[in-house]
C-alpha cells in the first residue's frame, strides 16, 4: 500500500520507463479513441499497460479543448487532454493514408487491445473492421465504444456528453423542480462508459488467457453505460411504475438533504442512529415534534422527510459548518460539509494518504498536482509513470522499434502527412 512517506516515489520524471511491477505491465494497448472515451485506456495505463495514443497528424481533438495551462491555448497545454491521457505515449498516424493503415496493421500484430470510438462502420470502411484485425492478430481484444453502440436504429445519432446524459435519464432526476434539469459536474456519461470499457477489456483478457489466447470484440454503448449508472430510475419504474422526478437536494431515498449552517452548507443525514441525532437536537432545544414516538418508525421518517429536514435546517442555522460535522461524526452520524473541489487539496485525509501526485513537466519547468489512485494495490501499484505526451512525442521511437520504419522513411512519412 502507498504510504505518505512514499509520496516522493510517485513523482514522475518525463520519459521514465514503465515500472515492471504494474499489474498490466507487458500489455500493449492501441488507443484510437477520441475525447469521449480517452479515460478507458488511461485506466489500463495507470496499472502499467503500454498505451499508445494514436492521434491524427493534426492532433487529437481533445488537445483543442480547454482549460489550458495559463489559459494559453496550445495542443500541449490542454488540461482536458492531460487529465485523460497521462501515462500514455503519443503516435501521430493517419489511418486515412494507405501507408498509415499498413503501419497500423503492423502495430496491431504486436498489441493486445485496440480501443476505438469511431462512428460505427468507420473502421470497416477503412478496411480495419473486426474481421481484418482478428485475422492480423487472433488474440486481439477490440473494444468499440460508441454513443449508442454498434447496432440499433439510433447507432448513427450524434451525441456529446450533454445529449447522452439527457437520453440516458441522468439529467431528468437532478435539480430543483421549478428549474431546468441540472447537468453533472464532469463528463459522467463518458466516464461511466470508460469505466465499463476497462471492465469489459479486462474480462476479455482474463478469458483469453484461460481459453488459449483467443481474443474477441466488445460492443459498448455509452447510453447504456449511463443508464446503468443511474442507481434508481429504472428500478423505481419497474417496481412501482413510477417516474422518479427531481427534488432539489433531497436524495431519492429521502434520507439526505442540503442544509445551511452559519458559514456554509452541509449534507444532512437521517441515515444512521435516529436516537443519537434527536437527543443532540433536543439538547439544543430545537427538536420541536421530532422527539414524538411516531418518528422512531423508519417508514414514517421516510414519508415525512421534508418536515424532518425543515426542523433540522432551523437547528443548524447558527452552527459553524465544520463544528457541526465534527460533532456529528463523533456520534457516527454521516453528516458532511458541502465543499468545492478546491477544498480536496487541503483535505487532511487525502493529504495523509498522499492522494495527489506531483508530476513534473520539464518542458514547462514546473510540476503540477494530479489526482491519484482510486485503488491501492499491495502488489501491483497504480502509478503515474509519465506525464501526458506531447503531440507525436513517441512517433519516431514507436515506428522505428515496432514497425521497422527507417529514419529516412520517417522523414518521408512526415512530408506526406502520414505522421
Amino acid at each position, binding site marked *: 500500500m502507498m504510504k505518505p512517506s512514499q509520496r516522493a516515489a510517485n513523482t514522475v520524471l518525463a520519459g521514465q520507463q514503465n515500472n515492471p511491477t504494474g499489474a498490466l505491465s507487458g500489455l500493449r494497448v492501441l488507443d484510437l479513441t477520441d475525447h469521449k472515451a480517452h479515460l478507458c485506456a488511461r485506466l489500463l495505463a495507470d496499472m502499467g499497460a503500454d498505451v499508445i495514443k494514436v492521434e491524427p497528424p493534426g492532433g487529437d481533438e481533445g488537445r483543442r479543448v480547454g482549460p489550458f495551462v495559463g489559459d494559453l491555448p496550445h495542443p500541449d497545454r490542454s488540461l482536458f487532454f492531460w487529465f485523460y491521457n497521462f501515462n500514455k505515449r503519443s503516435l501521430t498516424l493517419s489511418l486515412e493514408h494507405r501507408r498509415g493503415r499498413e503501419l497500423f496493421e503492423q502495430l496491431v500484430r504486436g498489441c493486445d487491445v485496440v480501443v476505438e470510438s469511431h462512428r460505427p462502420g468507420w473502421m470497416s470502411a477503412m478496411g480495419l473492421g473486426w474481421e481484418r484485425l482478428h485475422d492480423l492478430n487472433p488474440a486481439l481484444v477490440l473494444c468499440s465504444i460508441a454513443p449508442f453502440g454498434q447496432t440499433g436504429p439510433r447507432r448513427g445519432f450524434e451525441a456529446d456528453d450533454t445529449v447522452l446524459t439527457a437520453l440516458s435519464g441522468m439529467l431528468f432526476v437532478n435539480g430543483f423542480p421549478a428549474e431546468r434539469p441540472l447537468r453533472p459536474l464532469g463528463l459522467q456519461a463518458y466516464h461511466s462508459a470508460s469505466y465499463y470499457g476497462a*471492465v469489459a477489456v479486462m474480462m476479455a483478457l*482474463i478469458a483469453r488467457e484461460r481459453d*488459449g489466447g483467443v481474443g474477441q470484440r466488445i460492443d459498448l454503448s455509452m447510453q447504456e453505460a449511463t443508464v446503468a449508472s443511474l442507481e*434508481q430510475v429504472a428500478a423505481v419504474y*419497474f417496481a412501482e411504475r413510477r417516474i422518479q422526478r*427531481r427534488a432539489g437536494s433531497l436524495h431519492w431515498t429521502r434520507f439526505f438533504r442540503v442544509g445551511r449552517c452559519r458559514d456554509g452548507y452541509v449534507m444532512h443525514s437521517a441515515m444512521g442512529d435516529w436516537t443519537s441525532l434527536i437527543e443532540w437536537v433536543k439538547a439544543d432545544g430545537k427538536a420541536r415534534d421530532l422527539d414524538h414516538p411516531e418518528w422512531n418508525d423508519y417508514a414514517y421518517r421516510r414519508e415525512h422527510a421534508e418536515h424532518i429536514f425543515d426542523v433540522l435546517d432551523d437547528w443548524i442555522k447558527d452552527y459553524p459548518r465544520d463544528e457541526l460535522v465534527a460533532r456529528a461524526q463523533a456520534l457516527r452520524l454521516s453528516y458532511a460539509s458541502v465543499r468545492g473541489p478546491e477544498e480536496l487539496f487541503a483535505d487532511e485525509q487525502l493529504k495523509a*494518504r498522499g492522494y495527489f501526485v506531483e508530476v513534473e513537466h520539464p518542458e514547462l519547468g514546473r510540476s503540477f498536482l494530479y489526482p491519484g489512485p482510486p*485503488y491501492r*494495490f499491495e502488489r501491483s501499484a497504480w502509478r503515474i509513470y509519465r506525464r501526458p505526451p506531447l503531440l507525436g512525442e513517441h512517433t519516431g521511437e514507436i515506428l522505428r522499434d515496432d514497425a521497422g520504419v527507417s529514419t529516412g522513411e520517417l522523414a518521408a512519412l512526415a512530408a506526406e502527412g502520414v505522421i
Partner: protein
Amino acid sequence: MTAPAMPPLAGVRVLDFTWVVAGPVATRILADAGAEVIKVERRALEYVGPRRAGQQADLNRGKLSVAIDMASARGLELARRLAGISDIVIDNFSARVMSNWGMDYASLARLKPDIICISMSGLGHTGPLTGYVSFGPTLQALTGFTRLMAGEGGEPAGYGYSYSDMVGGYTGALAALFALWHRQRTGQGQFIDLSQLEALTGVIGPALLDISVNGRVQDPVGYHPQERLAAPHGVYRCAPEGDDSERWIAISVRTQAEWERFSGTVGSPQWARDPRFQTLYLRMHNQAELDRNVARWCAERTAEAAMASLQAAGIAAGLVANGADLCERDPQLESRDFFSVVSLPDGETTRVSGPPFRLSRTPVTVRARAPEVGENRDYVLGGLLKLSREEIEALVRDGVVTA
C-alpha cells in the same frame, strides 16, 4: 475453443460482505460475468427493500445468499471456511470491521495464500479519518458535486441519487479484475484498499487540474461547455404531452457546419440569420438571446419530434428521458435488449438493467433473479462446505444461520 465459450469469470468465487449500493454494484458486475457471488448477509436491515423488483432486484441479480450471524463464534468460523474456498473476499465496511472478525487480509491469507481481499471503505484504511461515516450523497458533498451542480440562485443541489456509489462500484469491479489478472500471471493474491472518496475525486475530471495548475476556483457547471465549445448548448422545454409539462430536449451545436444545418432545420427564421449569431464566438457571447429563440422553437414541438428533426440533420440532440421513456419507449435500448427479463419463483417476471456491453465470444449477461436473504443456505453450507443436513439444522436451530 469454438464451442460455446464459458463466461469470462466462470469458476471464480466471490465472498461478498458488501451492502447498501456501492459494493453490490461491484459484485453485480462480477456476477454478470459468471463469477459465483455469495452474499453473506446479516439480519434484514430495515432500509433494504424487497428483492422481487426494483433496486434490490437489480443490484443482487445472479448472486447467492446465505445469512450468517457474524456476532457468533460459530458464524465467524463458517465465514472463514467460506473465505478459504473463495478467490475474492470483498467488503464495503469502515476499516476495522473485517479485522475485528479476523477476516482481514493477513488472517485470510493464512487460510488461502492467494486470496484477493478488496475493501471498499468510504475514506480508506489509512489516515486520520478511517472511521468517517459516509454514504454516496455525503461523498458527493465532500468532493464538489453537490456544490457545483447548483440551482439558478446558486443553491447546491447535486445529483438526485448516489452516482458516487456507481463510481465506487465500477472502481471495485475493476480492482477485482486487475487483481485476478495479476494472480493469473503470478499466482499472488493481495489486499486492495479502495477509498470511495478517492474514487469519486478521480472522476471530477479536468476541473481538478484547472484548480491545481491554474488555481481557478470552479463555478457551478450549469450548461457551460465542459468539452468542445458549443452554442446553442443546453436543455430547453418542449411542448407538453398530455398533462406532462416536464418534456425537455438537450441540444448541442458545435461546428459552423452544424450551425448552418441547425438553422435550416429550424426553418431559417430571421433570428437565425441575425449577425450576432453567425460565428461560434458570437453565439457564445450572445447566448442568452440565442437561447430565448431556441427555446421558442422547442416549445412549439414535442421533444420526440424536435429530436427527430435535429438528428435527421446530424445535430446532437436528445430528449431528456424519464423512467418511462427509458423503460417503455426507447427504441435503441429495446433493439439492443438492454433491460433483461428475469423470472420470479411464482412465474411472474421483472426487468433489470443489463450489462452495457456485449462480448462476442464469452457472454456477460444477467444470469438469474436476486435471491431472498438466506435462500441458498443448503447449497452454500451443504454443497460447498460439505456440512451434513444435521449440522445445518443445528446451525439454524441455534440461530447461527437464518433460514
